[in-house]
């Protein structure tokens, strides 16, 4: 991926297996978020291909990628500020509406049945993540940690097969981080999905990921199990050494 003359992600060859929890780490500006933007169709890569379940998604628009089953959270939280927590999650069901535009206006039986199904699914999710109490608050009025959680739930509500999390622990205190780790593990087990996680916090990454790859200046410099990555001299030099110096 190039922006003008700047090559930002170069010859990255990586994969995420079924129901696997993979970590992507690397120093600031390594190109991690850019990888997410390429996969989800926000950017079209200048070269190369992205395959999801055998389908090439490079020419897909973001909403089409979401339709195929890839969902994400954002490094800078992007909740819908004028909507309640419940309605933030409701937006994820828009793509699966069968009752159309005119049904939504006339609101006959078919529409009501579907709305009820959505309401039930939303309530179920809110309950699982302990958000029922704040369901009718404006999402933006919640504490930071909760907002991150709502963003994860909103992404899950699109029924993804692959979930991309961009630094979900950023700005969290140690207790919140611990809860988040459990939440990520729970999501993976309960929803049987694959997760690709970007995270700077090594405790979180090492604690939840089954496999990790490391990006530096847009290139993959290492890949392996958490213990292998921890000991890899290239990684220590590029990343750990720098941040823990």
């Amino acid at each position: 991926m190039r922006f003008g003359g700047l090559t930002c992600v170069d010859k990255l060859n990586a994969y995420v297996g079924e129901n696997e929890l993979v970590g992507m780490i690397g120093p600031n500006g390594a190109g991690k978020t850019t990888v997410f933007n390429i996969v989800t169709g926000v950017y079209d890569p200048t070269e190369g291909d992205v395959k999801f379940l055998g389908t090439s998604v490079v020419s897909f628009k973001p909403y089409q990628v979401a339709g195929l089953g890839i969902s994400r959270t954002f490094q800078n939280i992007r909740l819908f500020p004028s909507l309640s927590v419940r309605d933030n999650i409701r937006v994820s069901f828009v793509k699966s509406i069968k009752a159309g535009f005119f049904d939504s206006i006339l609101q006959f039986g078919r529409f009501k049945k579907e709305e009820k199904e959505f309401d039930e699914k939303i309530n179920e999710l809110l309950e699982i993540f302990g958000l029922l109490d704040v369901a009718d608050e404006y999402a933006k009025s919640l504490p930071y940690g909760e907002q991150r959680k709502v963003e994860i739930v909103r992404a899950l509500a699109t029924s993804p097969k692959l979930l991309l999390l961009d630094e979900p622990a950023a700005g969290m205190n140690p207790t919140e981080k611990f809860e988040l780790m459990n939440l990520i593990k729970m999501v993976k087990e309960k929803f049987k999905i694959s997760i690709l996680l970007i995270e700077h916090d090594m405790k979180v990454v090492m604690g939840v990921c089954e496999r990790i790859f490391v990006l530096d200046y847009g290139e993959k410099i290492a890949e392996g199990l958490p213990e292998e990555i921890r000991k890899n001299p290239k990684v220590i030099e590029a990343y750990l050494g720098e941040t823990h110096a």
Partner: protein
Amino acid sequence: MNSKILFLSSLILIFFLNLFTEHIDPYYYTILIYIGINIILATSLNLINGYTGQFSLGHAGFMAIGGYLSIAVSTYFAPFFMGTFGTELFGQTISFIIVLLLGGIAAAIAGIVVGVPSLRLKGDYLAITTLGFAEIIRVIIQSLEVVGASQGFRGAYIFDNGVKAAQIPVDMANVPYVFYSVPKYTNFFWTFTFVAIIIYFIHNLINSTYGRGFLAVKDDEVAAESMGVNTTKFKVIAFVSGAFFAGIAGALYGHFNLYLNPEDFNFLKSVEIVVMVILGGMGSMVGVIIAAVILTILPELLRSVSEYRMIIYSLLLIIMMLTRPQGLFGVSLRRKKLKVKS
């Protein structure tokens, strides 16, 4: 359920109020009708600019299309309508509904032509394209002889030799003709029936899962798109529905005024509707309705300073932006959250 009953009972109420309004002073009656038409214009623009967060600046263009097309059809095809549906109330009603819908549909088609290309692009191209579009429509009408060009349009002359025209051509001064003026179809009942329809329409739409898509597009396009919302489609739907109702408003206006002039649909008219939406608080339906009422009555009270309308509007907007950027009613009348029975 609730809103359906409310809608039907308001139709009944409008029907009975209509009997009343027949006796009020024509001046107040006119203002009443203009209030209704402006509510339709403002709430339909609110769907685009308020709820979906786009910026359309050419609502008068859609109004012009609906208005001119509907009164042209009403007059040029008057013999057909009379012959087919008769001249009784029933026939008139059918004829009116047909031309109203034609006006709305024509405006909606124009909405697709203008909206699809500009809404597909990233960035704010809509304001400039719609502004240009409305001006182009006005200039086209100004040179269209069939609808009276810059003289305005009152009705159609249908000559015995089969010629039809908006004015008597010089070389046909001696040919016998019948003049069909614009029929006065618009009354309190029809105007406020459409007010009720658009309020019902937008209320139901916005308070559904589907409608949350529009709000999501306004709040954060990137996030909406990543959650599977086809943002371009939602923008186009909002824009085309808005254009449709502007066309209906134009048709109502034409069949009330019985005369249309291209200058009725100049830039000032588009700005006026935008001001109603901004003043009303972008996406607060009650606010926008109140703003439409106030901004219809205010110029009547201030007739003597009517040349300064543009200046007053600009000042109003500047003061608003500084003191109440959320609109007059933006906070106190917050949008209702979706109710859920758990």
